[in-house]
């Protein structure tokens, strides 16, 4: 909770112009942390709420002041585009910050490539927490608590709902006897791994206890049958994704919500914003189902 709060504050600092952030960002984060510690030590929820509200006001007013100040200098030097973009980032940051503070949405950053193709490393996404597990459909994206470490939140795609029969043959998903043609899937390796690509037929390798339980109790005629109250999920970057094939089902109670949009995407390798992914809506793309 604490670390998440400091992270959110660090993200919100993008509301300030780049020079201001570079010069004072670290000190501002330190000051924010110290004040939060003092307020926390007092132990009054009301004071904590007042402090967060005051900080939000401080952010909105002072960041627009600093943006205006830096805009004056950029407009005068003819860099109108830079100024407009700067203001856009400030507005966006504040909007996202305010939305993410509601119980309906939550912001996450994608640190891995397991969904590459659909969701990139460095995507900052908002998740719609109003979507409950029983509203999820097949092929929807889903965020959930990782069963092996519930502190972590994962994002994958719903492949099987309760009652669905699932198996993989040579990397192809067969669901209820129909082969899925999944446009969103990418494969990084060409070789066929006996377990990963012919699941659940192949001999299990590196499968934790929860996965072994699934193999022991939920396999009928070489197919997984998804039990009641659970989801079977797979990553889109299928060859490198650790998913239900390895650690088993996601209990419905662990579903956090459905990813809604990418509000910002940062390419750390090239240190630049991916503008074409910013404000990109994450819709489900249903695969074609064909007879095998």
């Amino acid at each position: 909770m604490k670390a998440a709060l400091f992270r959110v504050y660090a993200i919100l600092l993008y509301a300030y112009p780049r020079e201001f952030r570079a010069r004072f960002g670290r000190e501002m984060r330190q000051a924010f942390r110290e004040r939060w510690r003092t307020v926390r030590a007092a132990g009054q929820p009301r004071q904590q709420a007042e402090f967060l509200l005051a900080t939000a006001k401080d952010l909105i007013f002072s960041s627009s002041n600093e943006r205006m100040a830096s805009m004056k200098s950029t407009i005068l030097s003819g860099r109108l585009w830079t100024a407009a973009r700067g203001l856009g980032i400030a507005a966006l940051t504040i909007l996202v910050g305010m939305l993410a503070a509601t119980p309906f949405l939550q912001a996450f950053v994608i640190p891995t490539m397991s969904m590459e193709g659909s969701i990139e490393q460095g995507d900052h996404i908002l998740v719609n927490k109003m979507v409950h597990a029983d509203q999820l459909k097949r092929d929807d994206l889903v965020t959930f608590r990782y069963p092996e470490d519930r502190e972590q939140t994962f994002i994958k795609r719903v492949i099987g709902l309760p009652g669905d029969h699932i198996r993989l043959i040579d990397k192809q998903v067969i669901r209820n006897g129909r082969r899925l043609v999944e446009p969103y899937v990418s494969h990084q390796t060409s070789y066929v791994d006996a377990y990963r690509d012919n699941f659940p037929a192949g001999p299990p390798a590196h499968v934790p206890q929860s996965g072994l339980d699934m193999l022991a109790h939920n396999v009928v005629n070489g197919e997984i049958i998804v039990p009641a109250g659970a989801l079977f999920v797979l990553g889109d970057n299928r060859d490198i994704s650790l998913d239900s094939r390895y650690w088993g089902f996601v209990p419905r109670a662990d579903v956090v919500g459905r990813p809604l949009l990418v509000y910002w995407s940062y390419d750390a390798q090239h240190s630049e914003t991916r503008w074409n992914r910013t404000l990109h809506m994450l819709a489900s793309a249903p695969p074609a189902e064909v007879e095998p």
Partner: protein
Amino acid sequence: MFHILLSLSNEDRHGYGIMQDVAEQTGGGLKMGPGTLYGCIKRMLAAGLIEESGERPDPSLGPGSGEERRRYYSLTPLGRRAVRAEAQRMAEALQAARSKRVLVGGKV
């Protein structure tokens, strides 16, 4: 801005130290957020009223955050003259207000 100058008049402080001291000066009435504070600091640095006086940890903040390096600020001679002139002006204004009996309670 006056309160920030005043907080630096007796010792060098880092940003959070300034916030604490200003809150104390005003009986908790003026709580500046980091954005407002550093906006002021930026302008005061540009105006030559204050300057950076190095980075060092502040052990008084306790374990964990005490070891972290913090940037300290101090008054410049110009800043010292400014805070004195402003205090002088306020003292004179207070004198004038007293003579007109605008302060409630009478004894101020």
